[in-house]
């Protein structure tokens, strides 16, 4: 067994932090993605404009720059708002922007833009006759979404969502730069202390590969679930 020179438990904690950041920002990204997609598909021009501006701006700027902007600037911005609330309305609140929040919010916002594009394409791929059929059955809009639109949309969205998740997972490594103790940061600290880069970096890389492989398997399972009724035809496209 490899000797991690006492850094083993801390690396494990770091791996948990990585997973937490990844899963929480995935949830935020999925929510924002659905919102963006529906805003882009809505007939109201204002929603459309806002969503387009959001996806264009976010996808044009490096994730690290956005993360630093939020981490270093976020506290000042939040303080300005809470100060204003205090002077105007005498409401005394304090919001602390720490590395964890800054990381999750930034990654969630960035991938919300990518997810939005994926969802938009997938919604467009659902045959409109299906929705009309639902309406003809007297289903409410919400029921149509839940029973017809969403399950069929997921079939088209899953490959894209899976890809986005893989990229998101790797992007979580950036939170180490703003000071969150994920496994990359702990490995970097251990490297600087012991001068053994390979000993710490390679296990971390292996953990990333492991998470990626497990998620690949999960995505494949989900794909099977949402592909029910479409046979093997779709596998030719992958």
């Amino acid at each position, binding site marked *: 067994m490899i000797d991690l020179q006492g850094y083993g438990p801390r690396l494990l904690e770091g791996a948990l932090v990585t997973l937490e950041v990844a899963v929480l920002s995935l949830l935020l990204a999925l929510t924002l993605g659905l919102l963006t997609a529906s805003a882009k598909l809505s007939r109201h021009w204002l929603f459309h404009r806002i969503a387009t501006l959001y996806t264009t701006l976010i996808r044009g700027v490096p994730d690290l*720059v956005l993360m630093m902007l939020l981490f270093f600037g976020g506290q000042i*911005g939040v303080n300005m708002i809470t100060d204003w609330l205090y002077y105007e309305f005498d409401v005394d609140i304090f919001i602390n922007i720490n590395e964890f929040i800054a990381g999750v919010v930034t990654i969630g916002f960035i991938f919300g833009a990518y997810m939005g594009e994926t969802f938009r394409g997938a919604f467009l791929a659902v045959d409109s006759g299906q929705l009309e059929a639902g309406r003809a059955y007297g289903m409410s809009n919400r029921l149509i979404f839940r029973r017809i639109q969403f399950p069929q949309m997921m079939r088209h969205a899953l490959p894209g969502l899976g890809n986005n998740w893989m990229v998101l997972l790797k992007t979580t490594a950036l939170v180490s730069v703003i000071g969150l103790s994920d496994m990359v940061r702990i490995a970097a600290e251990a490297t600087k202390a012991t001068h053994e880069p390979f000993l710490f970096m390679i296990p971390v890389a292996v953990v990333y*590969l492991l998470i990626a492989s497990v998620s690949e398997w999960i995505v494949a399972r989900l794909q099977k679930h949402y592909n029910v009724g479409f046979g093997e035809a779709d596998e030719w496209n992958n």
Partner: protein
Amino acid sequence: MEQLNAWFTELLSDNAIFTANTLGYYLDGLGSTVRLVFLSLVIGLVLAVPLAIARGSRRKWIKWPIFFYTYVFRGTPLLIQLYLIYYGVVFIEGIQDTFLWAILKDAFYPALIAFTLNTAAYTTEIFHGAIKATPRGEIEAARAYGMSRALMMRRIIMPSAFRRALPAYGNEVIFMLHASAIASVVTIMDLTGAARFVYARFYAPFDAFLFVAAIYLCLTFAILYLFRYLEKKLLAHLKPLNG
């Protein structure tokens, strides 16, 4: 020109942060970023083409090592690859006595190596996919003409594969530009490094980072339009007639 200069000086005169001095940092940073991204993309492309062809080989001992390489480099964060190479080169036995050390002790070259290996892995997979998507009829036609494998590769498969790969490769170029921001982590003064420096000096996060974000945005759009133009030129035959 005189007028422009005067106008520029006046514009900057009552701005504490964006003085000619700090703008110089950003300019140097722009130079570093462009150099780093451009060099790694060019070298990565040169590496990726033969790798992509070999990746489609029927021989397992050729195919599997390349697959392993692309799998590892695409499956792990670029930051880890950068750390491994940046901290790792020092520990190669006896490297500090060779001429290589003069090159490698500068952070620029380890970063260049990491970025090159990373983009080569992604580009290999992009080209491999494009080669695999060659219509079977084209290959059969080439064979019917009695072309050798090399000639078929050169005249039939590669030209059309390059075109098919173009949109995905454009994305990879933009991805590389954005990924290059992490070069600032290993002390390189690239665009992000300049922004971090200006932030630390003036404690002005919004000015420092929004300005650099705007520069990146301009670069991204420039790349986007370049590739759109290339696609329009090279993929004209794929456009629908009344498009």
